[in-house]
């Protein structure tokens, strides 16, 4: 059987729009991983730059104009599907910064080393927390930025604090 996101919940990079390498190297930019026709549109109404559009029906999928996105992060915190991520390959030193929506408590702290997971829930590397953005306007969905080796820039999708992981019973 074909192993598709519909069977597993795991998207592949070919399933959605990925910002081109030049754009990623120029600084922060989003990736939207929302590929079905669902009745939803806040991403398109919240972006101050008009970088995200949903044409016609509310069930159409969002389309990003990467050249308009300035990486402010507003849409990441406001997407009810937690489906928008940030990537920045402008850092140099072979690392990239990734931003993800995060709704677990307690938050990791700046400088903390965390385990980084990919779309399938597998640990792929360690990451270092760079910033935790949680202003009131984000309404409890924080955006957490962390640094990973550059080869993981497009795959880092979740983090767990090492302390939290130790608490998970192993059977």
């Amino acid at each position: 059987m074909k192993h598709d996101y519909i069977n597993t919940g795991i998207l592949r990079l070919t399933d959605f729009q990925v910002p081109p390498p030049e754009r990623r190297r120029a600084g922060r930019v989003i990736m939207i991983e929302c590929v079905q026709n669902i009745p939803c549109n806040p991403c398109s109404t919240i972006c101050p730059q008009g970088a995200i559009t949903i044409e016609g029906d509310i069930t159409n999928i969002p389309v990003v104009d990467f050249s308009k996105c300035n990486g402010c992060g507003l849409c990441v915190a406001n997407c009810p599907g937690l489906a928008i991520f940030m990537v920045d390959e402008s850092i140099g030193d072979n690392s990239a910064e990734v931003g993800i929506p995060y709704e677990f408590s307690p938050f990791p702290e700046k400088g903390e080393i965390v385990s980084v997971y990919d779309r399938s829930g597998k640990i792929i590397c360690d990451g270092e927390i760079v910033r935790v953005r949680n202003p009131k306007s984000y309404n409890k969905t924080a955006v957490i930025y962390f640094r990973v080796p550059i080869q993981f820039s497009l795959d880092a999708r979740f983090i767990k604090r090492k302390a939290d992981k130790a608490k998970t019973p192993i059977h």
Partner: protein
Amino acid sequence: MRLRNHPILEFKEQRVIHFTFDGQDITALEGDTIAAALHAAGIRTLSHSLRRHHPRGLFCAIGKCSSCLMEVDGCPNVKTCLVPVKDGMVVKSQDGWGRFPSATSRKDYQRKEIPTRETDIAIVGAGPAGLSAAIYAARLGARVMVMDENYLVGGQLIKQTHMFFGSKDHYAKTRGIDIGTLLRQQCDELAIEILTECSVIGYYHPHELAMVHKRKLNHVKAKAVIIATGASENMLTFPGNDLPGVYGAGAIQTLMNVYKVKPAERVLMVGAGNIGVIVSYQLLQAGVDVVAVVEATPKIGAYQVHASKLVRCGVPILTSHSIVKAYGNESVEGAVVAQLDNKWNIIPGTERDVAIDTICLSVGLNPASEILDQAGCRMLYIPELGGQVAVIDRNMETSVSGLYVAGDVSGIEEASSAMLEGRLAGVAAVQSLHGSSPQIEKLKHEIQSGLDALRTGPFGEKTRIGNKIMTEAAS
């Protein structure tokens, strides 16, 4: 155990109260229901079954399944998932039918006379559908009264900590819990009367209701009635499905997000629709381990975005897998899951034993349409809408003139559509009282186009098919 910190829920100071359970002193927090307080104290077995005396725990936590019946202050068969605890309450587990109510408990509900309450529009259910109906009807000048058997207002919204989809007009990106509060505020501003702990138990022609408010019988007289009673969670048949520790996913969500009880340590979720996947994610937020989501069909029914956000946290969604059995003595201690072939048969050798203490079922919802049937509405079984529903027209009116429906009871959908249907039923009910006007026609048209827009796309297909069957039957 109680939750101590949570990324979304807020913790307020709650008064500590005491009651007894089978003679044992239990500490609870004001605002707990009896069943929630017992769960917080680690007690899951609430009663024993009628014939075989098997242990019974709660299943739905919203008053729909009767698996939580206990004796409270001498009164048998009390739905303990709905009744808030009070200081000094005497709660007893019930074996079988229970005893005849004690003389003191009978005083609580015996009445010499049954009072009548009159209103223009009586609304049954204070979920998103019922509250929206009330708001729109009251705005057009009608006198409305809302009744709900829960003691909290908001229906399923009160446990939904996630942000909702939709557009601005349906409160998109607002959390369900906050939408409930917003609707409540609008009702308060319009001075809408909302009666809680108030079960509607019968409909009589034309537009009279039998209603039990805090155990006392009342008579309600209205000019139109809107039924917005929501839905109940489906059961699944497998050996061991009656053990305490097998819950509806919504019940677990209620325990953790409304009563802040840590409901489990390790969970197996059955069903990968939106509810199964969302509740799994919320279990992780409450610090509970979810070992896997099993889904019998080869496809995940939930929105991809919901599935993706769960899978990346390390919880696998196993499609073409199902639960074979649950086992345990007093309560769930484990389960066996296995892979299915394309004819739904277990593939031999794929059985796996999982050590868990809780199984959550999210295998669909069923419209809570009993009252409509009893009222004599023309009913139809439409699988696409979730089961038995009343035949309605474009105005949400049933075959009984002046009796309307809105929300999940008219077909399982979402809160966004429940709100729009509620608005439509509210406006149409006012129209039935005062006749039409250009304002009413315009409002109805706007709401109907809003509903049509929500139902475009592949996820609206079931409702589109269901509604088509309905329209054909109605004509």
